């Protein structure tokens, strides 16, 4: 394997991992507040179609990302009303949101199925991009790749260094205690859920505006679910989400490895495509094998409805 190939594999891995980081970090925040939204797949699909449509009509990919963000947030608002205000079952409602988003995105996106967007040029960071191998693959990237890093930094600061982050975690660990000392549990959960939705929408728009760049029904292809699994795999820690997302990114571009290896092996493409899903199952097994790992790290109230008494 020569350096050029390593460079292109690394480049592809970073790109493939980026939507997972954005979506999973958004879910992480929602889950830290105690809300389990299994609708990420549907929110991403809506983000993808909204992002594509707006970029297609305005020619501005950033307006597309903004539209994706709004679409994802609106979807999560629907979820939040059902589970937070009306106290619906979070698992079932999340599933419903995924099915609904899948259908609605296919419906809305029909006119755009044969359209293609102009590729967005990469943003080169001076000096850093000159480092051999990692320079071009890490620092001559899509702008959203850098934004994902910024998001990561912001979330680490928010969760562990800010007062609001502490409050968010308190709500997830014990909503009744947070309520009894006067914090608005439901309002905080609303905001965390909306943030998770907005990020899922951004992740979806990254797929349709920057990554492919086109819109096809079902193009999210399980990434929303993988992002949810990633949060479990990362035991609700942002740094592990980052690392895990790139590992999964690497698995998603496995065909590059095979091509790059120069070996004359004939692996069916379907097998390579199934690797991310199999990898998800394997990491879930590894992480849940010891019951305490998940139990000690998961937000205590995750997935449970809460209704303040007074």
């Amino acid at each position: 394997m020569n350096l050029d190939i390593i460079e292109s594999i690394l480049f592809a891995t970073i790109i493939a991992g980026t939507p997972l980081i954005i979506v999973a970090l958004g879910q992480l925040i929602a889950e830290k507040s105690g809300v389990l939204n299994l609708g990420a797949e549907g929110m991403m699909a809506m983000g993808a179609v909204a992002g594509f449509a707006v970029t297609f009509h305005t020619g501005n990919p950033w307006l597309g990302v903004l539209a994706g963000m709004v679409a994802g947030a609106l979807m999560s608002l629907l979820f939040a009303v059902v589970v937070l205000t009306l106290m619906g079952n979070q698992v079932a409602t999340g599933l419903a949101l995924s099915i609904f988003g899948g259908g609605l995105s296919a419906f809305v996106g029909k006119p755009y199925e044969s359209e293609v967007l102009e590729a967005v040029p990469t943003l080169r960071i001076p000096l850093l991009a000159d480092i051999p191998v990692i320079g071009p693959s890490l620092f001559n990237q899509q702008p959203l790749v850098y934004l994902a890093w910024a998001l990561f930094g912001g979330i680490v600061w928010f969760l562990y260094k800010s007062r609001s982050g502490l409050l968010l975690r308190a709500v997830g660990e014990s909503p009744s205690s947070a309520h009894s000392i006067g914090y608005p549990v439901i309002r905080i959960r609303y905001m965390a859920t909306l943030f998770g939705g907005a990020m899922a929408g951004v992740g979806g728009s990254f797929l349709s505006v920057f990554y492919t760049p086109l819109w096809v029904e079902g193009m999210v292809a399980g990434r929303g679910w993988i992002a949810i699994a990633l949060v479990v795999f990362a035991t609700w820690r942002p740094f592990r989400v980052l690392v895990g997302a790139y590992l999964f990114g690497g698995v998603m571009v496995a065909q590059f490895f095979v091509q790059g290896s120069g070996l004359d092996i004939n692996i069916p493409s379907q097998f390579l495509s199934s690797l991310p899903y199999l990898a998800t199952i394997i990491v879930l097994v590894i992480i849940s094998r010891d019951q305490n790992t998940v139990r000690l790290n998961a937000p205590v109230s995750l997935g449970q409805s809460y209704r303040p008494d007074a």
Partner: protein
Amino acid sequence: MLRLEPRAQPSQLMSYASPLLAIVLMLIGGLILFSALGKDPVEGFRIFFISPLSDIYGVGELFLKATPLMLIAIGLAVGFRANIWNIGAEGQYIMGGVAGSAVALYFYESEGPHILFLMIVAGSVGGMLWASIPAFLKTRFNTNEILVSLMLVYVAQLAVSWLVHGPMMDPDGFNFPQSRMFEESAILPILIKGTRLNAAFLFALSALVVGYIFMYRSFLGFQMQVAGNAKNAARYAGFSAKRMVWIGLLSGGGMAGIAGISEVAGPMGQITEHISSNYGFAAIIVAFVARLNPIGIFFASLLMALLYLGGEQAQQYMNLPSSISNVFQGMLLMFLLGSDVFINYRLTWKRG
């Protein structure tokens, strides 16, 4: 202002009324959707809900589409009652279709009733094997069955794609990704002349009866109900949680597998990549709308089947994408989950 107030007791009336409320809300949603698209809502409703049933063929199609939904939903309901969330019925449905097709192709150019029988057995075994993966991982490693069963849907879709491009491809089919057309002896018999409704509908009805007996008349069914309502009570009573996981997942997998082979050996007549038709996901909605009750599943399946047919009609006559079905289905479930709040709470008006 309006506020929710807990009821002293859960309302029996509302637990039946809330699915109806959800249907009404879904229709209102549809009205808004049609208007927003600039279509005449009355005409839209006529095409969507009335025109599919205008002749005997249409009614046959309704029951044909409801069949896999009934089969899968009753299988899933057994597990859902015990809070075992098998979300991957779609994958189990595909693998049932694959396993049954393997039998059909193995017996290609031979005759006899044993072929169909073996196909259906293979279909249910195929579905159960696929469901046994999350069951094993859940009982052995405590792995979340939602995510595992769901990931296996994608794997199943890729597996069937590989099979019809390779080992199962029709050798005389000009490289189209599809199997041979099944022979007469591997096709389910038609029940009513002039329709495509086949014998699988009878399997679905029997499954509903068996499901009813299991849920309401068997000790194991009772145990699973207890586990779903009060996990700790079930544990103190010594009910085996692992056995429930296995039964919950295998019942869903087995039924989904039968649904899969029934689709292949019914309206499709061969296995292709298009076997995946979202019945596995729609059946989840059916199970919820039906309150996990077999009689409810019968009617909810018909409703969902009508939404499918309506989507096809809307595509044909109103130039709308057929995915409008999924929009209606998703709305139905969201509204149901929302209106369920009124089972335990009531709206009251308070000043200040």
